[in-house]
């Protein structure tokens, strides 16, 4: 009979259901009160000793003090009001979730004639059915299968499955999903039986885990799951397969034109033996870079760095690939695409000046003051006709670096300005051919500024340069016309962004009319057929029309501009003298350079997507912004669009107007992986406004099969962070190795409190002790 049974036998209540008890203090005493009681108790004992000092008989004295103390204890009992809490409790099993990997990688047969990981998993479950049965003694177990989603299952149901059903492996998301799918369960332990080929959140957090920050982010994520994860690796030591895979391509989203762009390719190779494998970087069908990598036996992961120089501005999809081998397990993982938006860091301008002039002085000042322009000027300060009586060492002149600028370095410039420059004494005609190729083939920008050494006066009429000018030159014509004039802004010029300083056309024209007069022009034969005259001479004209002062033209892949005067600087300081500002002159040149380099900011048709990489069946929102020739948004444009996939299919897009003027929308849902290109164009009253192209990648469904090797490192890291242990299905003693705390939770079903201090018995005892004490005192003659 234990204490509880004794209590039950004394109690007049029905307390038979209670199986536990607790003793509690009922009085709500403050600390000073407890101290006061303790002091009073001590004082009472001390006074008792003192008052019984006269008694010589020790036995009598002890008896007297004993009854006083007993009475005192009985009083203390009343003060502290002790009570007994009887409790009815029940032990409850902790909840455990067992997650089975049901993803595609589990279905791969990685040994010839052998089992898949999925089959191995089922064999393991059958072999260890007693383990799970025993586990169910201590835990309330729920079974789930997972891949890209989490689904409840039972052991027999899972064992009955023929093959895995999910296309992806999201371990982290599956554990997070437990809280949603069964919010009341509050799982504390989660067994994850997986090959670890994760392609969800955990993979993205761990794949570049080189810095402390990356590690702490992963640690934080695992901690946030708030469960103990027990990974069990579904592996098979007999797994032997051949595969080469582009696991990942690490590349920035932005690159700069003609600036080195470096990517790092993470390559995985298994079972290929020792061989050299070519790795190729392509932009569409064009090979951008190719190199060989030596595959060694026993080494599975390789990092390959590839560097190239983007040659064009725009959005591009590049693809890294390795060859496919006939005995490879998976051939879909041999290439990977990435998106790069190639932009211009700074506009690099080469300015070659035949003689220092005010025109050069103010243009240089404007370009130098623009932080987005990298100006490389070369001035001819002395010609062979100039008198030389000074030793070279007393002069600061340098030889004109003809070869460097017109041959070796020409491709590094975005725009070349020949300003009043007579090429004859300095540049062989073959280098002028280089400038023509640079514009026509490489997309460079070109400007010729007038003066007594430009156009016909510079004898350009029989050089390749005439082919890239917006104007035709004629042999033998009078090179110059003199006199002051105010150039006339043409209709095209008034709407063109190069000469647009005010959005109101009339105000824009009025501003240009207010500019100081220019003086002297280079005569030209005529404007070329496809060229546009932005400003013309008010009087000078021939049978072809007025002499163009500022003219522009598309030239092959590049653009060109001709300014047939050397007094444009009068729009600068002299205009300030007339009450204007230098803003117009600065804007003119900055806009001209933007137009020459095809800056996207000046495009009339602009295409945007919400991302650059999508997954199959994902709805891609396509937005198009259209401006008219006056650079105003227009909802009257006729918009065409189509999506081209890399297998040659073309799908037409239907654009609809959005609520915002000038905005058009469409959407596209890709059905398969691959690289796609959206091409759009817009017309206004059958007049072509422009086009825009946006490539994108659809790739996500390949993720599961990119790296099929069991990721022991990932699973081990998960176990370490959960303070558990990574197990493998080959391990003999799974149950002994699992670091599971099987301590059950105690649930309180009911309770009842029994108090004793307020019973009649207690008062009776106190009274009895005090009477006995009084009686003894009297008997021994003490008062």
């Amino acid at each position: 009979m234990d204490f509880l049974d004794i209590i039950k036998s004394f109690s007049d209540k029905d307390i038979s259901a209670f199986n536990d008890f607790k003793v509690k203090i009922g009085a709500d005493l403050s600390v000073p009160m407890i101290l006061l009681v303790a002091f009073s108790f001590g004082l009472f004992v001390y006074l008792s000793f003192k008052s019984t000092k006269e008694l010589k008989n020790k036995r009598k004295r002890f008896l007297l003090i004993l009854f006083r103390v007993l009475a005192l204890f009985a009083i203390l009992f009343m003060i502290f009001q002790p009570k007994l809490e009887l409790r009815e409790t029940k032990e409850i099993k902790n909840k455990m979730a067992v997650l089975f990997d049901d993803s595609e990688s589990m279905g791969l047969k990685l040994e010839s004639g052998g089992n898949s990981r999925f089959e191995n998993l089922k064999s393991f479950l059958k072999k260890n059915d007693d383990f799970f049965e025993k586990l169910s003694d201590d835990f309330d177990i729920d079974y789930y299968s997972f891949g890209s989603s989490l689904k409840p299952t039972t052991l027999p149901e899972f064992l009955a499955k023929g093959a895995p059903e999910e296309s992806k492996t999201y371990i982290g998301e599956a554990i997070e999903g437990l809280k949603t799918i069964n919010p009341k369960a509050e799982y504390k332990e989660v067994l994850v039986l997986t090959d670890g080929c994760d392609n969800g959140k955990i993979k993205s957090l761990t794949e570049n885990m080189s810095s402390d920050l990356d590690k702490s982010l992963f640690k934080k994520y695992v901690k946030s799951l708030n469960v103990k994860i027990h990974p069990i690796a579904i592996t098979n030591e007999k797994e032997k397969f051949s595969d080469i895979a582009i696991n990942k391509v690490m590349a920035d989203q932005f690159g700069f034109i003609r600036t080195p762009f470096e990517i790092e390719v993470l390559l995985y190779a298994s079972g290929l033996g020792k061989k050299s494998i070519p790795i190729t970087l392509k932009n569409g069908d064009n090979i951008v870079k190719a190199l060989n990598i030596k595959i060694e036996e026993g080494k599975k992961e390789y990092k390959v760095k590839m560097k190239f120089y983007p040659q064009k501005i725009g959005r591009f999809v590049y693809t890294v690939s390795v060859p496919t081998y006939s005995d490879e397990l998976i051939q879909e993982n041999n290439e990977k695409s990435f998106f790069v938006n190639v932009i211009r860091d700074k506009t690099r301008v080469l300015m070659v000046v035949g003689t220092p002039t005010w025109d050069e002085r103010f243009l240089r000042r404007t370009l130098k003051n623009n932080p987005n322009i990298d100006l490389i000027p070369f001035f001819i300060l002395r010609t062979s006709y100039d008198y030389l009586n000074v030793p070279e060492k007393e002069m600061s002149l340098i030889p004109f670096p003809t070869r460097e600028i017109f041959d070796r370095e020409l491709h590094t410039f975005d725009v070349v300005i020949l300003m009043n420059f007579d090429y004859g004494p300095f540049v062989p005609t073959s280098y002028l051919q280089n400038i023509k190729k640079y514009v026509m083939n490489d997309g460079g920008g070109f400007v010729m500024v007038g003066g007594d050494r430009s156009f016909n006066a510079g004898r350009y009429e029989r050089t390749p340069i005439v082919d890239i000018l917006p104007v035709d030159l004629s042999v033998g014509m009078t090179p110059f016309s003199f006199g002051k004039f105010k150039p006339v802004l043409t209709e095209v010029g008034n709407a063109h962004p190069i000469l647009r300083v005010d959005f109101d056309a009339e105000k824009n024209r009025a501003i240009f009319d207010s500019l100081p007069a220019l003086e002297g022009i280079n005569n030209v034969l005529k404007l070329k057929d496809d060229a546009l005259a932005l400003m013309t001479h008010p009087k000078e004209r021939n049978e072809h029309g007025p002499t163009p002062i500022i003219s522009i033209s598309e030239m092959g892949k590049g653009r060109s501009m001709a300014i047939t005067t050397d007094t444009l600087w009068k729009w600068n300081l002299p205009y300030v003298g007339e009450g204007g500002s230098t803003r117009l002159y600065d804007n003119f040149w900055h806009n001209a350079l933007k137009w020459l380099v095809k800056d996207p900011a000046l495009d009339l048709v602009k295409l945007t997507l919400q991302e650059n990489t999508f997954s199959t069946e994902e709805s891609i929102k396509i937005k198009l912004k259209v401006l008219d020739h006056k650079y105003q948004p227009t909802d009257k444009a006729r918009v065409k669009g189509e999506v081209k996939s890399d297998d040659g299919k073309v799908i037409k897009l239907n654009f609809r107007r959005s609520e915002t003027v000038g905005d058009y929308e469409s959407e596209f849902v890709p059905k398969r992986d691959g690289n796609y290109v959206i091409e759009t164009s817009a017309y206004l009253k059958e007049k072509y406004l422009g086009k825009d192209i946006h490539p994108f990648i659809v790739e996500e469904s390949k993720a599961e099969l990119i790296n099929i090797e069991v990721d022991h490192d990932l699973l081990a890291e998960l176990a370490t962070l959960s303070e558990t242990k990574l197990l493998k299905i080959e391990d003999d003693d799974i149950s002994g190795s699992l670091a599971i705390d099987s301590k059950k939770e105690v649930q309180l079903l009911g309770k009842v409190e029994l108090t004793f201090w307020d019973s009649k018995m207690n008062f009776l005892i106190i009274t009895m002790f005090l009477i006995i004490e009084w009686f003894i005192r009297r008997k021994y003659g003490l008062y």
Partner: protein
Amino acid sequence: MERRKLLVITLIVCLCITLTCGTVFSLTAKNEIVIAQLKYKGGDYEPYKSSLNVLSGYVVSRTSVILARDKKRIAIQDKDLFLYPLLYMAGAYEFKPFSDGDVKKLRKYLDHGGTLFIDDSSGQQNSGFDRGIKRLVKRLYPEKSLEKIDEEHAIFRSFYLFKRVPGRKLISPFLFGINTGDITPVIYSKNDLGGAYAGDNFGGWDNDCTPGGERQREMSIRLGINIIMYTLTVNYKKDQVHIPFILQRRK
């Protein structure tokens, strides 16, 4: 005799063509770079009538710059002031203070790309002109004061390389200036550079250069060319491509 006559006429015609071809076939015949001499009240704004013409001749013959032989005399109030980005101000004596409007206009001119080259023609320390210039500069740039232009400045390498500042007299071994950002819109010489150029069209000089004689005059002409070249090319000679050559030649 007739043949000799014909030969002489042909020679004269050829000579005329040779002398004038630099301008006749130039678009810039009307757009040559013209230096403006600043007219001001009090003192003598033009101590040497010929100095700029002579210097222009040297600039044209030694460099690719096409500089007009004749200067333009201009006052601050002139509406065409801003058509002349290089303003030459010379004098030997104290001059009348500029009006507030003139100071404001001159500051606007300098802030937007104009250059003021000041030349003290007195050949003396602390001349009346020098005092007037210091007062003018203080009003133009209350937040700044004239500072020595250091020897690494582009003025000293814009065409010729320099170690010392010459002139008709060696009053100061420095040029002075006001720097705004990386440009120097106000340049001040105390050594009477104009005095070193003054002369006739036949190679005669109006003044001796002391103490260095003709070498000092040659160096003065070079500095004049450099100042004009600096106003046209600013810091071009400080661009990276020129530095190795200049360092090598300065060894």
